[in-house]
């Protein structure tokens, strides 16, 4: 008569819930500790890695450079010297030779290519107002076709002496990509045949970047020359 109906097995009891919360809490805590620990252990190494990569690229674009200074342009066109390489805003690297003389500037730029954004570095000589080197950092262009903007020797030859003069915030001759084999002027980029879209993306990238960044550099040239 006094038979008790047993509760259904799946009914969540209060005890059970507390157990779950406790377990999940412990697991999360454990994981959290692990993650933080790893982060602390690897943070310096990662930063160092990133910096090395960047500085190696700069050194590649400005051969013979012994000292590098990283600048960033804040929102109002104000120039700031940075300690590490991490920071906000448009970055560029000033490279100095053994005598401490400004050898050139390496500017970061990016533009949408065929598949994704092509990010690149190019070196710029403030003295002659020309682009003197170009290097793709990251991209997802079609292998064998668009990705030749990274390696095609004929294409990279465009950037040995590319006219990038700026007057009153406008380029004198906007940098433009022309059909393969049709380059006539120093401000033109000879496209890779069969990879027109990627080549044009590079042209647009440089044209925009030159208009945005080089006036700031020219304005603050004496400061940069002093490495401040």
């Amino acid at each position, binding site marked *: 008569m006094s038979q008790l109906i047993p509760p259904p097995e799946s009914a*969540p009891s209060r005890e*059970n819930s507390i*157990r*779950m919360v406790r*377990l*999940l809490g412990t*697991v*999360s805590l*454990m*994981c*959290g500790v*692990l*993650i933080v620990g*790893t*982060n602390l*252990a*690897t943070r310096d*190494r*990662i930063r160092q*890695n*990133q910096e090395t*990569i960047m500085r190696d690229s700069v050194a590649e674009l400005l051969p013979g450079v012994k000292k590098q200074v990283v600048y960033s342009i804040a929102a109002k066109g104000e120039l700031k010297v940075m300690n590490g390489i991490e920071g906000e805003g448009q970055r560029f690297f000033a490279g100095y030779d053994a005598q401490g003389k400004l050898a050139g500037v390496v500017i970061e730029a990016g533009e949408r290519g065929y598949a994704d954004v092509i990010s690149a570095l190019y070196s710029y000589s403030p003295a002659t107002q020309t682009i003197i080197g170009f290097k793709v950092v*990251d991209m997802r262009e*079609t*292998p*064998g*076709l668009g990705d030749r903007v990274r390696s095609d020797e004929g294409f990279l030859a465009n950037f040995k002496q590319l006219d990038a003069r700026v007057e009153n915030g406008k380029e004198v001759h906007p940098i433009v990509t022309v059909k393969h084999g049709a380059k006539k002027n120093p401000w033109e980029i000879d496209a890779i045949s069969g990879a027109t879209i990627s080549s044009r993306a590079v042209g647009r990238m440089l044209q925009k970047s030159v208009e945005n960044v080089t006036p700031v550099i020219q304005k603050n040239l004496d400061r940069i020359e002093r490495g401040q």
Partner: protein
Amino acid sequence: MTETKPSVINAENTPFINGLWRQNPVFVMVLGMCPTLAITNSVRNAVSMGLATTFVMAVSYGMISAIRNLIPKQVRIATFIAIIACAVTVVDFLVKAISIPIYLALGAYIPLIVSNCLTLERAEAYACKQPVVKSMLDGLGMGLGFAFALTCLGIVREVLGAGTFLGFHLFGPHFEPLVLFLLPPGGFIALAILLLAFAYRKERQLKKAEAQS
């Protein structure tokens, strides 16, 4: 997998070999296709991805197995994910610390190890039922099997698609690479070729076994 009974028992006893070959996660179980197809366009990427996954699996299965008796049934998936995600984050840091170019190449795919069905499947099917050492061995075996499969695919794709192996040119400067193999569709095609070879081999073994019995 049309395994006969004895070999299943056998497989339970040798978790490491099992994952590496007999129940290879890619060629036999066809799991974890996202990284298999996305990350195998060069041998280097394939090996790195495989090793990262191996590490995640071995570590997280050890942890899961250690607390397997404490995990309530209702929240086991959440627990697995938390542990695996933790291991993945650790790998993310480690890869960055080891080499930035590899990190750039693997890109978004390292965080995706969490949602790789292979990782979760083995946690659910094996690690939450077996002791710690066996679970870690299983994770290691499965992970290496995965890495092996990825490497196979990576070799096929890099050699055909770029004419190189680990960056070395194999066929001289006049080789015309089949760029297709570096692109996503090439991944599918290469995988199909390898799966076909595996299936063909298995069928022949079965026929041989039938003929013997």
